[in-house]
């Protein structure tokens, strides 16, 4: 039997019509870069610092006039936007690598514009490595979101699972003195939170969103209480785990820029590089993943062909919680080194947004999470270079991007059809 690829537009022309909103939004962004950053931009110079001082191979700094740089990048972005519009008018999809180049170009223009005239310049290694580390909890949270929404359960409790993981990994890591045990305990604890969500949502058909919100409130309440009534009394024996050691991969960590950014990290980062591709492979290339997605799109049909809907949902949601717990561990023993009150600070909610922005695809979700990680470090970095505009506005950007995306400007955002709906076996 020959394999037939089902493409949009195969059955009807109407479903294939790409929206013009996305290319137009790209063009609008490009115009902002060209006019405000480039033609009307600042006159000073930008220093692009490519290498960290620790590195063995040092790349030369690249200094360029701000207006010139932003004008060239702006023109390039306009070209990409126009090409994308042309493709859309011919009913073709804009290839993903082109959107990636567009994103990279606009980020470079923004960084350059902000750092114009600043003495320390644009420190690429600092920005990129922090982006990655800060994105890790979001990526694991996002994977948890994918795993539960792909089988049709909305997991608002990611925030609570991250916080559980952060708390348990710090406490168990300190008490046992073994951070790997802390990490495993974090996964188990967050998995248990997910089990509560799964059983209430699947077996007792309680509203998934309400249960998720309440589990968050409960975890925040419990960790706040334990933090103030227990951890603070003896924090050196309860909440002082430290962090995993950095593991520099031989040779690879010597490569300029990416060596320091990617190949000299803690185990939590390397686990991310393992889990994301595995999840992608399982979801889209195995029978197990096909079944899971079937349950999330049409549980009745899945049930009819003999898939156990309730069990599939239960296990995917529970495993998702364990992945989120790993994200929580990445917050404490993978980055900060101790547990702080409400330290997840809404990252579980951002993970939800990241899932939508990345269209429920592990790879895209990872890239969207990196965008949010980038903005967290951008806020820190922008405070140092003191740009012309209030930092508060820079902070808003990723949330506005998400709003624009969910409002349908970045193409049609379509969740798994049965997401959030309980399935009652009739």
């Amino acid at each position, binding site marked *: 039997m020959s394999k037939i690829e089902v493409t949009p537009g195969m059955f009807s022309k109407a479903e294939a019509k790409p929206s013009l909103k996305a290319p137009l939004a790209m063009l609008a962004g490009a115009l902002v870069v060209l006019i405000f950053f480039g033609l009307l931009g600042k006159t000073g110079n930008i220093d692009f610092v490519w290498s960290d001082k620790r590195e063995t191979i040092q790349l030369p700094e690249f200094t360029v006039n701000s207006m010139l740089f932003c004008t060239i990048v702006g023109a390039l972005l306009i070209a990409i936007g126009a090409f994308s519009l042309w493709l859309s008018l011919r009913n073709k999809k804009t290839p993903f690598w082109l959107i990636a180049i567009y994103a990279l170009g606009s980020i470079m223009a923004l960084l350059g514009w902000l750092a114009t005239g600043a003495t320390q310049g644009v420190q690429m290694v600092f920005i990129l490595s922090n982006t990655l580390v800060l994105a890790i909890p979001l990526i694991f949270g996002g994977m948890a979101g994918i795993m539960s929404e792909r089988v049709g359960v909305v997991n608002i409790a990611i925030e609570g699972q991250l916080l559980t993981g952060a708390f348990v990994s710090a406490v168990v890591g300190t008490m046992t003195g073994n951070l790997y045990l802390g990490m495993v305990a974090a996964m188990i604890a967050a998995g248990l939170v997910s089990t509560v969500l799964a059983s209430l949502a699947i077996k007792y058909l309680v509203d998934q969103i309400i*249960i998720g*919100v*309440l589990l968050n409130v*409960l975890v925040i*309440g419990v960790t*706040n*209480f334990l933090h103030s009534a227990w951890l603070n009394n003896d924090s050196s024996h309860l909440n002082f785990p430290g962090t995993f050691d950095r593991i520099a991969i031989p040779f690879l960590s010597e490569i300029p820029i990416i060596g320091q950014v990617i190949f000299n990290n803690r185990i939590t980062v390397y686990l991310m590089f393992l889990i994301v591709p595995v999840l992608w492979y399982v979801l889209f290339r195995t029978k197990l993943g096909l079944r899971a997605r079937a349950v999330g799109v049409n549980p009745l049909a899945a049930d009819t062909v003999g898939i156990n809907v309730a069990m599939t949902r239960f296990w995917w949601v529970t495993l998702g919680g364990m992945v989120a717990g790993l994200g929580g561990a990445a917050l404490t023993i993978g980055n900060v080194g101790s547990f702080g009150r409400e330290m997840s600070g809404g990252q579980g909610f951002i993970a939800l947004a990241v899932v939508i922005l990345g269209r429920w695809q592990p790879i895209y979700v990872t890239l969207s999470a990196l965008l949010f990680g980038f903005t967290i470090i951008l806020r820190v970095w922008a405070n140092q270079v003191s740009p012309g505009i209030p930092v508060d506005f820079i902070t*808003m950007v990723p949330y506005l991007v998400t709003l624009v995306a969910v409002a349908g400007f970045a193409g049609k955002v379509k969740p798994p059809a049965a997401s959030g709906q309980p399935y009652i076996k009739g």
Partner: protein
Amino acid sequence: MSMKNKETKSLPQETKAQSVLNEIMSGDPVRIALSILLGFVIGAIFMVVFNEDVVKSWSNFGADPNYALSTVWWTIQDGYGALFSGSIFNLNSDNFVDAIRPLTETLRFAGPLIMAGLGVALTFRVGLFNIGATVQIMMGLAGATFVSTRLHMPQIIHMLVAVAAAVACAMVWGIIVGVLKARTGANEVIVTIMLNYVATSLFTYLLREPNLLLEANGGGTPKSDRPDGTAMMGALIGTEYKLNYGLIFAGLAVLFYWWLMERSTFGFRFRMVGHNSSAARAAGIKVENTFIWALAISAGFAGLAAAAQGLSVDGGLTTSIEAGIGFDAITVALLGGSRAGGVVMAGLLFGAFKAGSSSMQVAGVSPEVLGVVKALIVLFIAAPPIIRAIYRLPKPGSKVLEAAKSAKVAKVIK
């Protein structure tokens, strides 16, 4: 209720007792009471297990079991006793004014919670999950503070204008959510989460901007001036209490909510869309417009909460003025079952928690335990299966209940 009693009277003795019991046990008030009780019990366990004195006394339980048991009792008594005397009636005071002060504090804290809770409750009734009360409160605060610090007007009028500004600013942000939901189909949960972050940044910016809210001679910290005296919500029952006119607004808001949802055509449409939006659409109701209206009015309630909060502060506004009201409003609405009376009771309970937490702190019990109690109560109420499983209550429509009902029906037919 009286009708039911009459019917049950004629039932055989055994079935009658059983059916009455069943009806009560599966009915809402009892379930809520049991949830609250269980929440407090588990909270007590948390207090005891993580109390140093208790742990010490139990480590030599064999030597002095009486002491070990009494520390448990004293810990619980200290904690919940402090909660009681901090939120309802202060037993240790020698004059009446001080004795009832805790009650007025509870009412003061409950006001904004009730108003914001009504806003969230309204969207629940329309079948929306608006968790953006935080945004709306922050923007309402910004509006109220701008009017109260930058404009100068006579007494009362100034306050009313500030309240109106708060409501208007909040409603704008409700309408944004409504339009995004209605016109693009964006999920309101995600939209409100994102707007919460946008608004937090925007609020900080507004407080930092000298032309808008930043205090005169202000430095780098985002903080506003104290509102003009003419715009402040004055003392309601005498200057010895902090209780202010905000409570009147809360009362009016409750009456308005009740009328809107239970008596007006508008509310009927809201409820219809909430029950079954397809049926509502078939009946000719413009569902999308209903969403926008619901979110706008809901935001108006949040704006009122913001006004009550912002026009009663002692000093100027800071970024922490929102005090988690927007998030608490969700739990208040859930606990109150989205009904006017329920929201009032839930608001009072959570207001008491807020009022009592400082005296718990003084008594040496971590008031954070109230966060656990609060979450558990609402979790038990929102998830009936848990509480039914714990107390082994019968399920509504279960065999026991059905048997009782059919016995009743059989009797009536005879």
